[in-house]
């Protein structure tokens, strides 16, 4: 006699008339393959947990984003925001598609060079550029986006010592109706500081003011904020034209487009509220077209979108370590994925899915990571199917900021693999081992015996 399929016994209290925050229960969704590669095979081959990056998804998302802009505006250039995910293979996938590089440190700048990006296609942002970094960027004709007056004067000084003319832009911060206003970066528009900085640069005659830059914030769900930003930058450009007869080459609108992840506390899922690339493109190019640029002096539009381009391409796969009852009877499930790897669980309610399930039954569950810390919570409350120790899970949309902001705590950072266009898998960052740490640490002689 063949036996019936087993499912664990469960009893759950019915809270009549109190609709769950997560809405009515729908059928349990599973994620058992990525780009046709079985998730189980990936875990078997590369261990658990493991990050997976889908190159086909990178390409698809990139094409969607670029065509939204190029169908509306003639001169568009994307620059891959390294901090979002600077694993070399990921950066190269973007460069292969035509992206320049956007970097914010000497470390990232070197990475871009090593990834074969030519100096004049590297945008150097951020408040922390050493004199050495700046010298190199000036030599390479990189696009230096000045953050503050101290940097501005350093560049003017360095310009005296070289025959290269530094290519510079200023970063501008402004009120676009977005809260919080990121006023700690760059020069303020409303109080005249940005205009003052531009004047100082123009009068120096030692540098080429090639562009204007802003980055108004991140996870911006109101495209109209970008129209406001473009109008203000265009206003500065028009003033440069009027006063100095100088036309800038580009306007860099930064990044900040939302991804389809759900922010903590949001009532609706991110995939329902995230504006489309078309909506952002409409707002941005509409404002550019209605600004006062002569048709032969239209600036190139540079976009430094990060999370919106890579979040969907990243997955984190892992394993159930144990189930437990909390003191109030709620179920908790411990995963081998914690906030050390999934840094973004501090602000997203990530979608955690079983790789396979034999049941449609779910229970109100807290998903914990394996760290010995109370803050190690992947999901505080989620309707989750009844998985057992050893069962596999997959977390969606983890491509942005995790593989750069992850913490090395208690255990190693895992393998990162990439699935290519032919659906082959490749390790793109090796899991750390004890040897990784031994290579970095130095034991003083007197502690050796």
């Amino acid at each position: 006699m063949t036996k019936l399929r087993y499912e664990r016994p469960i009893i759950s209290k019915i809270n009549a008339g109190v609709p769950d925050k997560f809405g009515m229960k729908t059928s349990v969704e599973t994620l058992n393959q990525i780009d046709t590669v079985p998730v189980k095979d990936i875990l078997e081959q590369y261990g658990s947990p493991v990050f997976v990056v889908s190159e086909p998804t990178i390409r698809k998302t990139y094409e969607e984003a670029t065509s939204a802009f190029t169908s509306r505006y003639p001169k568009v250039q994307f620059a891959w925001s390294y901090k979002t995910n600077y694993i070399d293979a990921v950066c190269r996938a973007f460069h292969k598609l035509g992206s320049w590089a956007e970097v914010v440190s000497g470390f990232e700048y070197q990475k871009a060079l090593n990834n074969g990006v030519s100096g004049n296609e590297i945008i150097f942002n951020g408040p922390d550029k050493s004199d050495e970094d700046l010298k190199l960027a000036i030599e390479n004709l990189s696009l230096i986006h000045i953050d503050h007056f101290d940097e501005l004067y350093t560049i003017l000084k360095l310009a005296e010592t070289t025959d290269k003319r530094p290519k510079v832009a200023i970063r501008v911060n402004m009120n676009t109706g977005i809260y919080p206003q990121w006023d700690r970066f760059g020069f303020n528009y409303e109080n005249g500081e940005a205009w003052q900085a531009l004047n100082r640069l123009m009068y120096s005659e030692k540098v080429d003011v090639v562009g204007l830059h802003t980055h108004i914030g991140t996870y911006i769900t109101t495209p109209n904020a970008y129209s406001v930003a473009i109008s203000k930058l265009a206003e500065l450009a028009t003033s440069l034209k009027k006063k100095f007869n100088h036309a800038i080459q580009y306007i860099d609108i930064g990044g900040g487009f939302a991804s389809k992840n759900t922010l903590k506390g949001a009532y609706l899922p991110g995939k329902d509220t995230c504006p489309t690339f078309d909506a952002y493109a409409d707002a941005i190019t509409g404002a550019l077209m209605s600004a006062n640029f002569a048709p032969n002096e239209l600036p190139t539009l540079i976009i430094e979108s990060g999370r919106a381009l890579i979040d969907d391409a990243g997955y984190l796969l892992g394993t159930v370590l144990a189930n437990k009852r909390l003191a109030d009877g709620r179920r908790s499930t411990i995963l081998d994925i914690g906030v050390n790897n999934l840094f973004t669980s501090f602000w997203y309610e990530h979608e955690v899915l079983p790789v396979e399930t034999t049941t449609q039954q779910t229970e109100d569950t807290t998903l914990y990571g394996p760290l010995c810390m109370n803050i190690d919570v992947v999901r505080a409350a989620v309707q989750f199917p009844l998985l057992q120790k050893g069962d596999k899970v997959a977390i969606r949309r983890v491509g942005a900021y995790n593989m750069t902001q992850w913490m090395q705590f208690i255990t190693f950072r895992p393998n990162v693999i990439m699935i290519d266009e032919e659906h082959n898998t490749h390790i793109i960052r090796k899991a750390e081992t004890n040897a990784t740490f031994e290579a970095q640490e130095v034991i003083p002689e007197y502690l050796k015996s």
Partner: protein
Amino acid sequence: MKLKKNIAISETGFVFDPNSGDSYSLNSIGKEILELVKLGKSKSDISFHILNKYDADEFTFERNYDDFIDMLKHHKILENE
């Protein structure tokens, strides 16, 4: 281990506790076990029955059974001995 008095288990797996007014839902295997508990069957009887009928290993079932019983106690459907 004893079910509290007056606890009603419906055909479809609903449980009503008239003492508290609370109601609960069971999955089908939960309902099966609760009915066996109601008949006064022991843990080993229940385990024997389930393992014969379903494709599960002994340790997994024991682990799940204990958890289930704990939840019945937590919801005060079982008397605490």
